[in-house]
């Protein structure tokens, strides 16, 4: 169908006899299209496809960062990885972080978007406040939050103590738990989900609510019966993106664990891979771990997508 509409357009500027054009056009066109996609494809091949293949190859070798000759060692890395308790621990920690962070990130994103959609006159201020943290570099975020988490003189413990909430004994703010990382992450990245929901809300036409108004539905009924169902696809998208993002956690954990938070030496998956490759210099082993994480993320994303899209139907 594409071809039909484009045939007349393919005539070269010089406009040679029509008969010739018709026979030559498809060939010329085919080369042209390749030129359009070539620049991106080239960069993509070098920095995405090639590293993926290389990583797969390395996972079967004893490739090291020291640069000594590479030797094929078969499945040794893989069997080591599957028996590596610390690696599974890091994967579990990553999953735990994802389980803790996804619900508040999705629910708050939705709730804040509903508020901002209703409170239109404050729209500018609300969008600024809720979305602004998302544009801030992670190291700035962790600097500020580590400062707020300080046991002495930190803002959070001060107010928790003042309001009788038991100071630093409240679990989410305990220095050696996942709690502070989750709280910081929610503050930092909720804005993206907020924006996706807000954009979706703006595409719901007002007429949809008119019938409900005539029927005398109250605000809650409209929210539950109309708005939320209409946001179903957005929710599926937000949850998928959020799961993928949470499973990739590294930055804030790395900075906060190394920046004065009293985190136990447990690692998150990316950090474990990073350490295996760049501290342990074992590129082959780190590559095998990378592939396990990659497959894990892929499976989670696919399963979740399947579940949610079935619900949609």
């Amino acid at each position, binding site marked *: 169908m594409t071809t039909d509409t484009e045939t007349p357009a393919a005539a070269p500027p010089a406009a040679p006899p029509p008969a010739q054009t018709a026979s030559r056009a498809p060939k010329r066109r085919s080369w042209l299209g390749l030129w359009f996609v070539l620049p991106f494809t080239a960069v993509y091949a070098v920095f995405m496809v090639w590293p993926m293949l290389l990583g797969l190859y390395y996972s079967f070798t004893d490739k090291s960062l020291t640069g000594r000759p590479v030797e094929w060692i078969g499945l040794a890395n893989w069997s080591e990885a599957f028996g590596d308790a610390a690696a599974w621990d890091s994967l579990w920690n990553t999953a735990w972080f994802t389980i803790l962070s996804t619900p508040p990130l999705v629910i708050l994103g939705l709730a804040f978007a509903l508020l901002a959609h209703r409170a239109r006159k404050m729209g500018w201020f609300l969008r600024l406040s809720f979305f602004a943290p998302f544009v801030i*570099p992670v190291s700035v975020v962790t600097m500020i939050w580590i400062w707020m988490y300080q046991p002495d003189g930190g803002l959070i413990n001060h107010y928790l103590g003042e309001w009788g909430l038991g100071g630093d004994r409240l679990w989410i703010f305990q220095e050696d738990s996942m709690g502070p990382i989750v709280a910081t992450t929610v503050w930092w990245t909720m804005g993206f989900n907020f924006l996706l929901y807000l954009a979706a809300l703006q595409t719901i036409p007002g007429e949809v609510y008119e019938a409900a108004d005539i029927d005398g539905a109250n605000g809650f009924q409209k929210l539950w019966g109309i708005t939320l169902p209409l946001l179903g696809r957005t929710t599926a998208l937000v949850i998928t993106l959020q799961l993928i993002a949470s499973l990739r956690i590294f930055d804030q954990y790395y900075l906060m664990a190394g920046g004065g938070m009293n985190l136990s030496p447990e690692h998150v998956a990316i950090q474990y891979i990073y350490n295996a490759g760049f501290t342990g210099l074992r590129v082959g082993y780190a590559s095998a771990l990378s592939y396990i994480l990659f497959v894990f993320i892929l499976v989670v994303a696919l399963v979740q997508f399947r579940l949610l899209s079935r619900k949609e139907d």
Partner: protein
Amino acid sequence: MTTVQERPPASESKPRTITRRRGRITVGGALVYFASFFLALLWLVPFLWALSTSFKTETEASLGQPIHWIPEDWSIEGYRVLFERGDHLTWMINSTVVSTIVTVLTLALCVLAAYGFSRLDFPGKKVIYGVILAGIMVPPQALIIPLFDVVSALRMVDTYWGLALPQVVAPVMIFILKRFFDAIPRDYEEAARLDGANHLRVLWSVILPLSGPILAAVGIFTFIGSWNNFLWPLLVGNDPSIMTLPVGLGVVAGGYGLLYAQNMAAAILGALPLLIVFMLFQKQIVKGVAGVGLSR
């Protein structure tokens, strides 16, 4: 699925006039405003606290108790020290250079490729597009080890290109742009093509002018993503002279020790550039996300 019809993104609909507007103020409405205002203020607390700390003297900042939201003893010492040391400025320039390269290249390469996939037919098109789409599922972090190997083989470690080029690979942008181009009615270009315009010309003078909001969205999100990228620049930019702002702040400034006022001054300066960008382009960002149609 939904009762809402999917509109082609090209038909830029005006922001809907508020159909539910009523002249009177309801209790529920007031409650919504009150709750929104309170939550927004709560969300700003970390910023405000950092801002407040950054204008204190080190003594007052480290004292902590009692909490002063307004500094008792105003001081810009933290900022002065940072400017004197100067590395903050270097990082900011590095971040600007890298993010600009990434954004310009991403836009240029993705627009060209998306046009090719949307409007042209060529051998291998399906295979190439399929391989690119599959890339959406690959988390870049899982690639860092072999990617580092590739970049060092290309002798790009500690260079702007080594920092920028791997970030240009954004398959999802191809997907978004192609979908958008697909929805632009072809009648528009027919006229131009009959006038003898070639494909580049059509792309430039017909397609791009219709794609303003989506290009803005793709550009802004690419820029934000690149500016805030941490793991990759951490690996490839070891030299302090090539460090980007997030890495510099995380690695070097983290070692300043317990100088809270100075730390918070660094945080505020680090947050400022993109906050300004965000305030300037807020409308386009929200509109762009709607236009991308991701959320429908």
